[in-house]
């Protein structure tokens, strides 16, 4: 292979209905401007979005799968963080 490969970018798109941007996939581009142009062609051919974010894949920091236990297990036994934990009698009215 002769030259450098174009870096990988992750693409996030806001759908039509005032939702958050969502990850839709990735693509290759030389810079941010190019990545947005490519994202428009590759990921919004059917009106899928009204706004595009792109970020270079190498710049994303991610949690490690091996830390899944220590990271997320502590939340599991804290059922009192959910509204259904608290039993309120019907007589109290709508809440």
């Amino acid at each position, binding site marked *: *292979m*002769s*030259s*450098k*490969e*174009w870096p*990988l970018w992750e693409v996030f798109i806001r759908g039509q209905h005032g939702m958050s941007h969502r990850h*839709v*996939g*990735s*693509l*290759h581009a*030389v*810079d941010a401007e*190019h990545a947005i142009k490519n994202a428009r*062609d*590759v990921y919004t*051919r*059917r009106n899928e979005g009204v706004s595009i974010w792109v970020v270079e894949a190498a710049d994303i920091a*991610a949690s*490690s*799968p091996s830390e899944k236990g220590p990271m997320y297990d502590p939340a599991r036994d804290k059922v009192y963080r959910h509204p259904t934990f608290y039993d309120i009698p019907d007589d109290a009215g709508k809440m």
Partner: protein
Amino acid sequence: MYAQMVKSTGKGLVAREDMSFEDRAFQDRIDAGEKIEPKDYMPDGYRRNLIRQIGQHAHSEIVGQLPEGNWITRAPTLERKANLLAKVQDEAGHGLYLYCAAETLGVSRDEMTEMLLDGRMKYSSIFNYPTLTWADMGAVGWLVDGAAIMNQVPLQRTSYGPYARAMVRICKEESFHQRQGFHIMMAMVNGTADQKRMAQDALNRFWYPALMMFGPSDKDSVHSAQSMAWRIKMNTNDELRQKFVDETVPQAEYLGLTIPDDDLQWNEDTGHYDFTEPDWAEFFEVISGNGPCNVDRLNARQKAWDDGAWVREAMVAHAEKKAARKQAAE
């Protein structure tokens, strides 16, 4: 299918007692219907098989543009031309989704392209057949995309997360492809006698190559068992081929066209059509490089790769210059 004849591990199904501790835990996750994500543990064979399979699928999308691109400038009306352009543009997008899914496994897109060009990776045998008339655009959309969809719909549930997600997008977009093909066939069979004859001729030429898309018969698919255990293959080749025949025969009848198989017949006992298997000797010839268009297809890809090299390089140089200028101004 788009990934016919994926060989990489060279072994059959690994028995549970022969698995390492990690591999057993991995298999348990798959059996529980969990998705495997890029940074998760996976056995080498799983990774290698997936790279081959997704890569072959991606190459098929890209090479698959060639037989149809052939007719864009000669589409009979502006509307048909716009339809075909949109379809071919979709194929490019599908190739890109799939390359990105494969890249999460640690292979780069350029490496995969090199492997396609030097013959280490393959693409579906179907794209090595020529598209001789406009009716072939109808037959390709109807039969080839129809067969592709049949394979891809179950793959939305495949165990590898990025592959499954790419498949969801692809399936959503692809149903228009088959319908536009059938639409062309409907126009042809309702046209002049010559047009109807062209439609029949296209069906005659594409029927058996379409059946070959599902890959060799189950009894000759040595790698299926492991792939199915890993849920990177969801149905056997013969199951999908039967399903395709069962769905396509009534569509051909609707068009008033004849499937080129004298032994095709509804079997009351099995609830399926009996049909003639494609010529597997021809299939193995085509897949190993000796089909009618293999050389043309690879030459076209090689030319695009070579002719585009200066553009890829210039884009990088320009981006670097722009970034340097911006930094200097700050």
